């Protein structure tokens, strides 16, 4: 059985994994990171999006074995010490969720978009989130929230944790 070393939200784990174990199941079932949901299980919906070495991936489409020696950040690793990440705060402020199931993936994809496009237009936000589906169809508020999150992450406020960092606990 492959033995992997993987850092998740700042903590390094050594795990023996069955080859067919998907990253999302490692996160949820082994490590208790249930903040990352399984949505469609076909690679379409993006609910399970996490950061793998700083880039967004759909964790249902990555084997745990492929994440060996990688750094993973989930929705649970974004905030620090009881404080929400600015993008999480923005989703809250703009009421950018209804059922909330797509929210973790939306937030990870939004933070990924801002790596290249720190001040995205509405169109860039919609394109950047094209791999994330909201079946409540609450897209307008999501776009507003990403805009707000981008403003708040743009440096006017003290630099908060971003998707590229990990919590050290």
């Amino acid at each position, binding site marked *: 059985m492959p033995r992997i070393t993987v850092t998740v939200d700042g903590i390094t784990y050594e795990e023996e994994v069955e080859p*067919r174990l998907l990253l999302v199941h490692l996160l949820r079932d082994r490590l208790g990171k249930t903040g990352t949901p399984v949505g469609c299980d076909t690679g379409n919906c993006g609910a399970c999006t996490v950061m793998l070495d700083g880039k967004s991936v759909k964790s249902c489409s990555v084997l745990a074995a492929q994440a060996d020696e990688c750094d993973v950040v989930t929705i649970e690793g974004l905030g620090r010490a009881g404080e929400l990440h600015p993008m999480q705060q923005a989703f809250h402020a703009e009421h950018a969720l209804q059922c909330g199931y797509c929210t973790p993936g939306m937030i990870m994809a939004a933070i990924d978009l801002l790596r290249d496009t720190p001040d995205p237009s509405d169109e860039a936000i*919609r394109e950047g989130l094209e791999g994330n589906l909201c079946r409540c169809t609450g897209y307008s508020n999501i776009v507003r929230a990403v805009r707000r999150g981008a403003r708040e992450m743009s440096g006017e406020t003290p630099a908060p944790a971003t998707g590229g960092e990990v919590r050290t606990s």
Partner: protein
Amino acid sequence: MIPATFDYIRPASLDEACHVLRDAGDSGDDVKVLAGGQSLLPLLRLRLAYPSALVDLGRLPGLRGVEDRGDHVFIGALTTHDEVLRSPVVREHVPLVAMATATVADPAVRHRGTFGGSLAHADPAGDLPAVALALDCVFIARSAEGEREIPAAEFFTDYLETALRPGEVLIGVRAPKLGADWGFHYEKFTRTAQAWAIVGVAAAVRSEGGDIAEARIGLTNMGPTPLRAQVAEEALRGLGVAHGNGGGPAPGSAPGSAPDGARDPVRDACGQAAEGASPPSDLHARPDYRAHLARVLTYRAVRAASA
């Protein structure tokens, strides 16, 4: 769904990978090469494939990156779609590759999915096979016996089937640089943002003094393999690109009609884009609708590429 069980092998070198694949082929095992996994893992999860082992090439050194090699651009098989899109060499010298890659799936998938993986997977609904055909790319395969070149026209043999032999690995693709007199466009028709193409058209057009000197048209999802629209390519040769209006009338207008009533020979030629194709029928489209799309999208793509 959870995939069926398989063994996981991560070779440390390309040579080791070739030997593992050859041995597996000799013993009749159904092994699959894993690159980015963005096509393969969904197939495993849906239990549409039951390989006995995956050979993970994802970390092999030397198969990743884009190189300017004078008369062509070499794209390593493990270069991710995201890396292809970020490459200034690709954008400058093989812009058709960049145009099509930008339409592949979504950002998260493009971070993992690879250029070579999507070609070797050979899904006729994939965007890159038609581009490789239109550009007359050359595929480089490596096995324990050595390297072999496969022209794009011979690479795609059937639905999800390629000319790669058991034990062979696609290590990269040579994309010829076409000159400044060439224009390019990829036109894709989808139902939703991230969806596969219902039909796609990759067009490369060489213009000479206001005429189309040469047109190469690759069709996505118009048969079990990507196709060249050869009849339309021949019909376009020598036609003036200035005729008709650039945007053309709305799709669905009678073939060859321009708004002023004059016939547009470019539109007539593109009307033959589906000749010889055998488009699939599925829940998205019937064959006759796909043929219609091929004609309309070819006209748009040729117009844009020759503008």
